[in-house]
């Protein structure tokens, strides 16, 4: 339906303030628009403006700051404590933190994954459609010549960008806190092998990528919830509650047959990236599962959003 509408020629900006990934999207937009005139530039302008709005929002920054506080608090607590953390107590890898500051990032992620990351992602994604509907701005967005499908895609891409930003925030804050407070050197992997600093950063990036992918399924679910209501808090709460319920189900051995189907099932398996040699099988399984959720809830959101009467 977006293809049938006239293209007024939008203002695609380079968006230097929103990072390289977005600049890349903008560049891709320009090349895409050159070959396919049916895809209006206005559509890409919508994406750029969505990202601009999202990352200029004070709420987004507050969420990211709260996430950054998790590894920093862990690092400070371990540093100030006079007792060495003993192996097997507290979150995994906590005992390694004093020997290698890079583990602050890993421990921070492990602590954030069950609640803090789904919480912040739920807040952002629950707000996508319902927030606009609640404010009465949704119909103005639909006046833009991009169409409802593209608006849905833009909202999802915005949420995905937040997932990436959230994960990178935790990892970066963890690495920085580790560098500041603890010695940093060659990293000991789970297999007992040690790798150099450069490869350690590579692994940290891989882990950030893994966790970002892990959150994509939840984002799709949240997007669907967000199309159901005009009360953003409802969509946020539903998303967050669902992520907690799923993790509870995942911990019940009686429901073992269900576990591989739960979107949170592989969340903590990023530890496979800390083995030697790197094992990408859980990365693949996780990506496939999240793609399934994305397709399913994307289709549901499509059905709902395109048949919905937009009154606000």
């Amino acid at each position, binding site marked *: 339906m977006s293809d049938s509408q006239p293209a007024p020629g939008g203002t695609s900006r380079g968006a230097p303030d929103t990072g390289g990934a977005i600049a890349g999207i903008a560049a891709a937009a320009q090349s895409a628009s050159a070959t396919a005139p049916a895809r209006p530039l206005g559509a890409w302008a919508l994406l750029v403006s969505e990202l601009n709005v999202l990352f200029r929002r004070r709420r987004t920054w507050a969420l990211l700051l709260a996430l950054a506080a998790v590894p920093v608090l862990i690092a400070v607590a371990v540093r100030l404590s006079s007792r060495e953390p003993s*192996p097997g107590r507290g979150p995994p890898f906590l005992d390694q933190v004093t020997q290698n500051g890079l583990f602050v990032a890993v421990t921070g992620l492990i602590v954030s994954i069950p609640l803090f990351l789904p919480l912040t992602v739920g807040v952002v994604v629950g707000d996508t459609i319902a927030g606009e509907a609640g404010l009465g701005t949704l119909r103005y967005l639909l006046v833009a010549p991009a169409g409802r499908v593209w608006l849905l895609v833009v909202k999802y891409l915005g949420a995905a960008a937040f997932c990436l930003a959230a994960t990178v925030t935790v990892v970066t804050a963890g690495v920085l806190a580790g560098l500041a407070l603890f010695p940093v050197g060659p990293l000991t992997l789970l297999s007992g092998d040690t790798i150099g600093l450069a490869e350690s950063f590579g692994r940290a990036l891989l882990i950030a990528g893994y966790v970002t992918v892990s959150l994509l399924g939840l984002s799709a679910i949240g997007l669907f919830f967000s199309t159901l209501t005009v009360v953003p808090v409802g969509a946020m709460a539903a998303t967050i509650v669902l992520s907690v319920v799923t993790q509870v189900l995942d911990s019940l051995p009686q429901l073992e047959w269900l576990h591989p189907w739960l979107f949170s099932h592989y969340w903590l398996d990023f530890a496979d990236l800390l083995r030697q040699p790197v094992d990408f099988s859980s990365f693949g399984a996780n990506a496939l599962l999240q793609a399934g959720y994305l397709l399913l809830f994307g*289709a549901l959101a499509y059905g709902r959003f395109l048949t919905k009467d937009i009154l606000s």
Partner: protein
Amino acid sequence: MSRPWLKWVPAVAVPAVIVVGVLAAPLQAGAAVDLPEKTPKQVLELAAGSGVDTFSGTLEQSSDLGLPELPSTGDAATSEVSDALELLTGSHTVRVYQNGADKSRVQVRYPMSERNLIQNGSDVWLYDSADNTAAHTTLPDAAAGRTSPEETYTPSDLADTFLADVTPNTIVSLGENTQIAGRGAYELVLTPNTADTLVGSVAIAVDSDTGLPLRVQVFASDAAEPAIEVTFTAVSFEAPDADLFAFTPPAGATVTEETLPERGDATPDKTPKADQTDHGGATVVGTGWDAVIAVPASADGSGLAELTTSPLYTQLTEAVDGGRALRSTLLSVLITDDGRVFAGSVSVERLQAVAAE
């Protein structure tokens, strides 16, 4: 655009496609595999003649012995017992790297940790990332360069010997050809020729190309699902990276040096951990599948007392006539009131009968 129901088509189609895909995948994996016809003896020869000593792969091990769920946390004494039992219950993923006879690495994976056993020539390392400990031993030269006794037989001899050994009480047959880790495999099925045992059958899938056993399944007598299963989920016959076998313990690890007991044929995976004392005096009653191992009461009874005071003991065992018994789908253990222990792949009733003799 005038037909809004069209917009819901993807929402119906996507789950349908996913369901079809999920249902079709196992059908495809279970599809009949075309392999040249072979007799059981030829498959045995193939397995016995397998000279594969360079490969890497991922093993999936799962056991369903019908034991009660064990608490995963607990005090140190309990957790040591459940550590040992944990290997028997539940499932594990193990990565295996083998390069020649004297270079190997086994990685047992846990959610946030890993246990590594690395052999490089005569050096053997055991590393546990959960508590960051490493143990090192040096194998005696004889053990490092030892030739396995199998090599003195031809595969055909070995197959004959095996068949002669097992035939009186075992039926050897071939099952359906299967596909494991993407490779065609023959399935040898060993069925006990007696009704007294708990073992229903043992199925060994043998790679049709190299003869490497790719899967072993042990079925209890009345179960459709295997009680114990070890299977390759991925296997490659390329030489693993040499770096994998060069292990230096990481900085900060607790390193202990262990010396192997002078026993000549000690294998590296029997690291001195559990008590290996006074297991002399055990006798085997009967032969074949329904054999029972009998351990007489030790003089001081100390080992048993330690066991029976563990809270896990009462959880795992039940009171029967003359002692306490542990029942599982494949193995029964009877500990009599006077401290004797009987174990075997037989019913508890048979253990009681042996104990009464």
